[in-house]
């Protein structure tokens, strides 16, 4: 167990090192920060001074080592735009993103397992076919399009009047085809402060309503992927000898599905799924932009527009760190729930 932890930690550090080198290296290719920091009228001599002061003239290695040393203390310097430590800017935006990712994860887990399992148990039923069809559509439509459609239907509302409006039945049918909208689709609304930089949407129904459309659109690709993954795994497990043997033992189908098959299905899903959830943090950029969700994704895009290099680098590092942490946790959980994996440092 200890050896396993040490090995995983070593991996984590290695990945973080690579992320830090890459994220630091791209700063040279991201425009001139001085231009963003000072006005047009500032003379070249002053610019050069500022450049020297910020250490932008030092060799790459020197700049990297200085960066790495500070990064250990979560000190990534000051944001050019906000004029405050970048880590504080990121931490201020992070709760919004994490809450969005959390809500999306809940959505995915709530729907993918029952739908995936159902469509594996009854692969030929019309409902299963419908689920599979819809999931293909979900996977193939880009997130921002899904988001825009959701906004149109549920936030703005659509008025569809193909039937005569002056008759009772006509307006009733029109009403079925139309929506009032009204679902919040801009920002987080009023949030309740919890602790530190963390304010939450989860404190009230009103707050939750702001999460609905963004989390649905963030889930629109991952949820179908999960459904298909679970279905495929379950179908394979149901073909296995141990399921046939369980049938030959006279075990009830319910127990075979939910005890024998489900656990074996979920093992690989935990691995793939856990990693995917980790990447959700990075996938929020599009969703946050469309819904003006004040999370790190939106902050990151703004930082790029402003060539706020320290903030960009901090974002990459923190998202990288979250990714590495989730992966390590996933490995640990997998090891704990899978009896055939021993948590040793040695490969199985």
């Amino acid at each position, binding site marked *: 167990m200890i050896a396993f932890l040490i090995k995983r930690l070593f991996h984590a550090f290695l990945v973080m090192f690579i992320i830090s080198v890459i994220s630091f290296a791209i700063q040279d290719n991201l425009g001139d920060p001085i231009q963003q920091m000072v006005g047009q009228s500032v003379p070249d001599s002053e610019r050069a001074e500022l450049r020297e002061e910020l250490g932008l003239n030092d060799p790459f290695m020197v700049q990297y080592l200085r960066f790495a040393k500070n990064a250990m203390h979560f000190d990534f310097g000051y944001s050019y735009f906000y004029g405050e430590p970048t880590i504080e800017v990121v931490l201020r935006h992070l709760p919004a993103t994490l809450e969005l990712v959390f809500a999306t994860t809940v959505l995915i887990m709530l729907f993918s397992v029952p739908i995936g399992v159902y469509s594996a148990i009854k692969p030929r039923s019309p409902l299963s076919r419908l689920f599979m069809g819809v999931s293909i559509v979900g996977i193939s439509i880009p997130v921002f399009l899904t988001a825009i459609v959701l906004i149109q239907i549920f936030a703005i509302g659509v008025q569809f009047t193909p039937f005569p409006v002056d008759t009772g039945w006509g307006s009733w049918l029109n009403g079925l085809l139309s929506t009032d909208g009204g679902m919040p689709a801009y920002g987080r609304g009023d949030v309740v402060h919890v602790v530190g930089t963390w304010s939450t949407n989860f404190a009230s129904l009103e707050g939750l309503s702001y999460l609905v459309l963004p989390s649905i659109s963030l889930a629109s690709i991952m949820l179908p992927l999960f459904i298909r993954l679970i279905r495929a795994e379950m179908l394979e497990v149901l073909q296995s000898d141990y399921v*046939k043997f369980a049938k030959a*033992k006279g*075990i009830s189908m319910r127990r075979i599905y939910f005890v024998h098959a489900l656990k074996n299905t979920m093992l690989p899903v935990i691995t793939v799924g856990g990693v995917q959830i980790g990447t959700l943090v990075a996938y929020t950029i599009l969703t946050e932009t469309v819904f003006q969700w004040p999370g790190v994704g939106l902050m990151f895009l703004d930082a790029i527009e402003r060539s706020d290099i320290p903030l960009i680098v901090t974002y990459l590092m923190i998202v990288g760190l979250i990714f590495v942490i989730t992966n390590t946790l996933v490995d640990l959980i997998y090891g704990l729930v899978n009896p055939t994996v021993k948590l040793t440092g040695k490969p199985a």
Partner: protein
Amino acid sequence: MALLEVSNLDVRFALRQGDVKALRDVSFTLDRGERLGIVGESGAGKSVAAFTILNLIAKPGYIADGSIRFDGRELTTMKPRQLQQIRGNKVSMIFQDPMMTLNPVLTIGEQMIECLKAHRRIRRRDAREIALNKLHQVYIPSPERRLDQYPHELSGGMRQRIIIAIALLLDPDVIVADEPTTALDVTIQAEIMELLLELCEKHNVALILITHDLGVVSQVTQRMLVMYAGRVIEQGPTREIINDAEHPYTQGLINALPQMATPGQRLNQIPGSMPSLANTPPGCAFHPRCSFSVDANGERRRDCREVIPTFVRSGNCDVACHMVRELVERHSPEHDASDNGPSEKREAL
């Protein structure tokens, strides 16, 4: 009345290219405590037969025709719930590969106790006691500890012992063992086979032993069936078939045994290979490989090519072969020569 009566069983797999006829007109009976061997090359339909006995054939497979009567009850039309009560309880199965048969994420104890709880109203503690007792019977060292272990912690031989223990949990009337030793190391094959034989004899359990090992069949079983391309082609007392097989295919199988070869020479393999069930030759499915299907002029006999042979009684065996029928009829002139296939077949069973 026999304990198990399988008659005229037809099993097919509905595939896109059309139906594959995996079992055709398969009939046999099994008495209480009797041990019956089913032999044949791989792909002959032995496993399909094994699963069909428990009506466990899964889609796209289906029972197209025939009946399976167990203890007087028809299994082909039985409701799933009632079938469930027979499976693992009255009739249990042992699979070929013990490495794949046990669920990797459930403990041995769990997999034994659930079986007991599925068939009896029993407290967990009592079920555990029975499981422990059965593990003792299959000579598992430190059985108490095994109950809490997972399958991957045990060797293949150990797992097959546990599977035998599971098969015996509810004191069944019949065990269907589908090549129970094929996946094991040669050194433990005999051990497992002996154990199975010992337990079946001790508890008077009938055994259907599926194997392609004629040696095992001759040691363990009292009667045997030989299958070829989905059909039974010879059946009768094991000793009689092994000592004096009538069907050219059975003869070929026996001659192909290593102990039948002259030292230093090739094994006497049957030329060619068994056809796939998707396109079996017309007439006798074995005729393209059969040296007896060629007449004096070196031509294939027409009946072998075109007519599916029905069973003819020879000694205590039933054989489906035109050549054997000719021999039998020549030696017993009082035999009614008119070809009344179906009734004759029924009489043969």
